């Protein structure tokens, strides 16, 4: 009797990530194209807390990887109500596929989903390298060399594509959400790194708008390329002001940095800002910044 009660209590108090993970498993299991589902990270190692993200690996038949990748935003938006389009994950290690980060409203909060899409033929080595735990494995149709070539070609193209303004704005919110989590957990080194990524996001937003033909890497020649107009000089001044702040941010500083990005973006890329206006407003409400 006591055991049953404790089990029930444990179930009732399980972190909300498990409820969402359950929905994800149900969703992907419904597609015959999906051959594997694996969970990585803290959920797999048993070290998760209520702030933890969901690290899900989705193994898909090689031939169908491009089709699923192209329709992933529509699938997750329709099925789970993602707040923003997926952000192409530039933080995750190269494991033979490609990753996206999503924010999903769930039980009054935003949960982070790190979804890694990998061709079936890459799953065995991925599992060996990461220790990911299997949730689903089933035989699909055999993959031919042509199937694998199709997924490889798609993944190579995805890896080399440059972000547009909309992607950079999404990136700013995702990185900000990650940063707030690290600050809550008192992890200054990771917070330092993420603040740097927010600054880079601001730089790239300025650069793709005011110097889209730039052939220079990163910060090189930025003042020369961008500072030719009053708007550009204003952007550089904002960027410099952001960089002058402490390198390990407080939460208020993190919030001010993302606010600065969106304020400048309203002048630089108004159409991209307008397209994401509702999602941005909802994001601020969830983060209690509205």
């Amino acid at each position, binding site marked *: 009797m006591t055991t049953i009660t404790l089990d029930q209590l444990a179930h009732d108090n399980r972190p909300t990530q498990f409820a969402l993970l359950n929905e994800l498993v149900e969703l992907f299991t419904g597609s015959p194209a999906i051959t594997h589902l694996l969970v990585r990270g803290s959920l797999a190692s048993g070290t998760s807390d209520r702030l933890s993200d969901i690290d899900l690996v989705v193994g898909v038949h090689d031939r169908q990887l491009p089709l699923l990748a192209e329709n992933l935003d*529509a699938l997750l938006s*329709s*099925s789970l109500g993602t707040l923003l389009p997926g952000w192409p994950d530039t933080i995750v290690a190269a494991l033979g596929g490609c990753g996206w980060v999503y924010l999903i409203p769930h039980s009054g909060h935003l949960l982070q989903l790190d979804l890694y899409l990998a061709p079936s033929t890459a799953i065995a080595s991925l599992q060996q390298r990461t220790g990911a735990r299997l949730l689903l494995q089933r035989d699909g149709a055999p993959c031919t060399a042509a199937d694998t070539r199709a997924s490889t070609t798609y993944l190579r193209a995805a890896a080399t594509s440059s972000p547009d303004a909309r992607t950079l704005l999404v990136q700013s919110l995702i990185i900000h959400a990650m940063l707030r989590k690290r600050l809550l957990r008192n992890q200054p080194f990771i917070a330092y790194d993420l603040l740097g990524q927010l600054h880079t996001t601001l730089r790239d937003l300025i650069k793709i708008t005011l110097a889209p033909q730039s052939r220079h890497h990163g910060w090189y020649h930025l003042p020369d390329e961008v500072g030719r107009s009053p708007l550009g000089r204003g952007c550089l001044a904002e960027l410099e002001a952001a960089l002058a702040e402490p390198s390990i941010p407080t939460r208020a500083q993190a919030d001010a940095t993302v606010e600065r990005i969106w304020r400048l973006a309203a002048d630089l890329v108004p159409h991209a800002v307008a397209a994401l206006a509702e999602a941005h407003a909802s994001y601020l409400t969830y983060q209690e910044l509205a």
Partner: protein
Amino acid sequence: MNTTVVTHPLLNQIARLRPVPAATLDLMRQEALNTPTPGVISYSDYQSGGWWTASLLNHSGDPHDTIIGDGTPQPTTLLEHMPTTAAFLRELGLRYMYVRLARLEPNGWLWEHRDYAELTDVPRHRLHIPLATNASAVLVTAGARVHMRTGWLWRLTPTVAHGVCNELGPERLHLIADVYVDDAYRALAEHPDLDLDDITELTPLSEQACQQALSQAADLARLGFVRAAEQHLLRLYYRHALPEGGAYDLIAQMHQVLGDEARAERWRRDKTILLARD
């Protein structure tokens, strides 16, 4: 700039009737958020899930009883814990048919439909008092998105085809009252208006965008995500001015292209039922 208008093509479908005092609204919101029960979640063909109803005035007094019918309703046990809400309803002096709290979770969608199909003999209206909402929570009718902002008592004519969504959240929470038309109602509804800032006129769906949406939905269905494919097309209603039932037609078209005539036929039938064309 004053953006309030008293003549507008939408005024027959939806309108603001009067402001709700901020202090009253805050107390009613507090009461609604603290109810001992969230109510009952309903599942049906005309919604995506995440639609919770808690009855405040009905015929049984049970807050979990969500049956709508003509007559004089009584307070449910829930309303007894909501003194400000009860006083607000009383002071309006209306003849109520049914009053409830309605919660719509993020990613909650009530697809295009008509209400009161079986209750057409007596004139009645639906009043909404938004208690908590967000910019992505909208009502769509007659090719326009209307954000029912808090601070107002709204009137909806639910016999006109409409849909509701809370795309991104947080939770949308409305007090909804179905009322009979009488002198008190006429006085309340004497000066309807709308604020243009709450209205977005939707653009028609171009042929190219239509083909693109159909193609993407068909891709999802081919991958085995049939429900997601259908929902992808149903959402077009909230983004584009479609002919009545247009989203249902597109789903039927998609299934037909994929060779699933049975599903295509089911959606044609559902369209007739949801839009009360029988």
